[in-house]
């Protein structure tokens, strides 16, 4: 095969085949193009305002490392005037998070950004290692996801920062679109596709009104990895020890198989998700109650967005999700064949049943559409003050369960007590 020539500079050897448009680019033109596109995303969605303090949710993984690197470059090149900080969450997983945090510490030096690490132990009194000891490896991702979402907001509040950016990429968003479509979860489909989400509420708690945005939303995971490779960025990659098979048999695998057949499929799914989200009744920004800073692609976000997510990118679904979905679909088909009404069974964690939402969850998808999806009315958790649509937020519900059983286990193992 004769070497390909870069389609931009027409001089150097092309080394990258872009998934979105099949353009062949050399290393330097690719890096430039990748950065320009992120800049376009930031400008066209008015993600940043001048002088804003922005915390980058940093895990040490490829996405957040590339995000930090690109934002530093763009901030200097285009004079955003942003003050960039690194915010890391320590879930307390030995042999996994402690290693990746070392990478974040190096990144903080490399990019000259102050780093804050917030631990689950200081926030909740439990490390994930202790949670797993308590509840086992099955279902621990729910705890981790719920805790992480709040932890980022709490860390931001500690820093007095009103804006957190995360490294969610196009593959993450496409995966979430598929999962929410299959689940028939329209409100969440709308939230997941928004490039900016915020947590407005009637109360003026410092934990509210923290904006979340995803500057890499339209960036392919493939290009993020290639950017990191060609810029020789220092990132950490391993699978969480509590979900080592998380990337098997998941919606992720489906996305990657689609990409192999037709690479543009990923962005097509992202765009379709955005278009479908527009059709979700009540999902427009009038639900923001006037608290929204920007119009357009803004959505209200609930505490549960990060739920079930494992891996530092909250959108990643745990393994077996697809299998679960398939069995659900089979059940639905069986029900239909038997002439029964079709129902989307609730996949909610056990804790949900207790806070009285089980009734809504069991509604038929059709009926739900006619009446418009139930809007989340945001209030404050009675216990911790965090934004919650229920009297007690999900993290506090989970903690209650954990703390209740703690004395019992302490009889067996003193280690569980701290």
């Amino acid at each position: 095969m004769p070497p390909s020539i870069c389609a931009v500079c027409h001089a150097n050897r092309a080394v990258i085949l872009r998934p979105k448009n099949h353009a062949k680019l050399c290393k330097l033109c690719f890096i430039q193009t990748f950065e320009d596109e992120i800049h376009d995303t930031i400008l066209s969605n008015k993600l940043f305002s001048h002088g804003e303090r922005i915390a980058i949710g940093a895990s040490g993984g490829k996405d957040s490392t590339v995000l930090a690197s690109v934002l530093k470059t763009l901030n200097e090149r285009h004079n955003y005037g942003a003050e960039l900080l690194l915010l890391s969450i320590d879930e307390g997983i030995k042999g996994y998070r402690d290693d990746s945090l070392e990478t974040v510490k190096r990144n903080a030096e490399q990019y000259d950004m102050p780093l804050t690490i917030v631990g689950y132990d200081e926030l909740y009194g439990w490390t994930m290692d202790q949670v797993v000891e308590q509840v086992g490896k099955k279902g621990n991702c729910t705890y981790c996801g719920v805790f992480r979402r709040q932890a980022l907001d709490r860390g931001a509040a500690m820093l007095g920062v009103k804006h957190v950016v995360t490294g969610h990429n196009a593959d993450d968003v496409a995966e979430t679109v598929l999962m929410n479509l299959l689940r028939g979860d329209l409100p969440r489909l709308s939230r997941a596709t928004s490039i900016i989400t915020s947590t407005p509420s009637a109360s003026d708690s410092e934990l509210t009104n923290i904006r979340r945005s995803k500057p890499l939303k339209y960036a392919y995971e493939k290009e993020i990895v290639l950017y990191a490779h060609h810029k020789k960025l220092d990132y950490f990659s391993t699978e969480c020890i509590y979900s080592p098979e998380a990337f098997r048999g998941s919606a992720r695998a489906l996305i990657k198989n689609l990409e192999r057949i037709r690479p543009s499929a990923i962005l097509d799914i992202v765009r379709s998700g955005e278009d479908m989200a527009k059709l979700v009744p009540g999902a427009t920004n009038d639900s923001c109650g006037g608290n929204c800073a920007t119009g357009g692609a803004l959505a209200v976000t609930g505490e549960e967005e990060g739920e079930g997510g494992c891996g530092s990118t909250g959108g990643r679904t745990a393994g077996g999700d697809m299998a679960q979905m398939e069995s659900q679909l089979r059940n639905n088909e069986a029900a239909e064949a038997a002439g029964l009404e079709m129902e989307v069974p609730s996949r909610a964690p056990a804790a949900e049943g207790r806070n009285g939402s089980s009734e809504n969850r069991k509604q038929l998808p059709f009926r739900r559409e006619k009446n418009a999806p139930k809007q989340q009315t945001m209030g404050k958790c009675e216990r911790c003050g965090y934004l919650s649509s229920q009297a007690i937020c999900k993290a506090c519900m989970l903690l209650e369960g954990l703390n209740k059983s703690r004395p019992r286990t302490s009889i067996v193992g003193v280690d569980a007590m701290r």
Partner: protein
Amino acid sequence: MAEAEKSEAQDVITLKVEFTGGLEMLFSNIKEHKLSLPAKDEQDKATTVNYLVDYLCKKVMKDRRKELFVQDGTVRPGILVLINDADWELEGEGSYELQPEDNILFVSTLHGG
């Protein structure tokens, strides 16, 4: 390509094969492997990347979970292959004929942080 004549003179070609992005886990946690492959396969054809992938599965990989590396006879979707830093799709993918001192990099995009 221009070096094709060089490889004919030798019966083995040496390669640098790298695994990153978490893929090294499947290869005894060693990121960089120096390999010597026969220059011709059993059918007396030049060895290709496909040959290398097969060789890696049979001879190098000790992990039993082959399906995490190969699927349907080729490298699993989500794993990028770079031949001398270029996307293998630009080089003919699996049918690329290996040249002496080639650097073949396998990067997983599937692992989180």
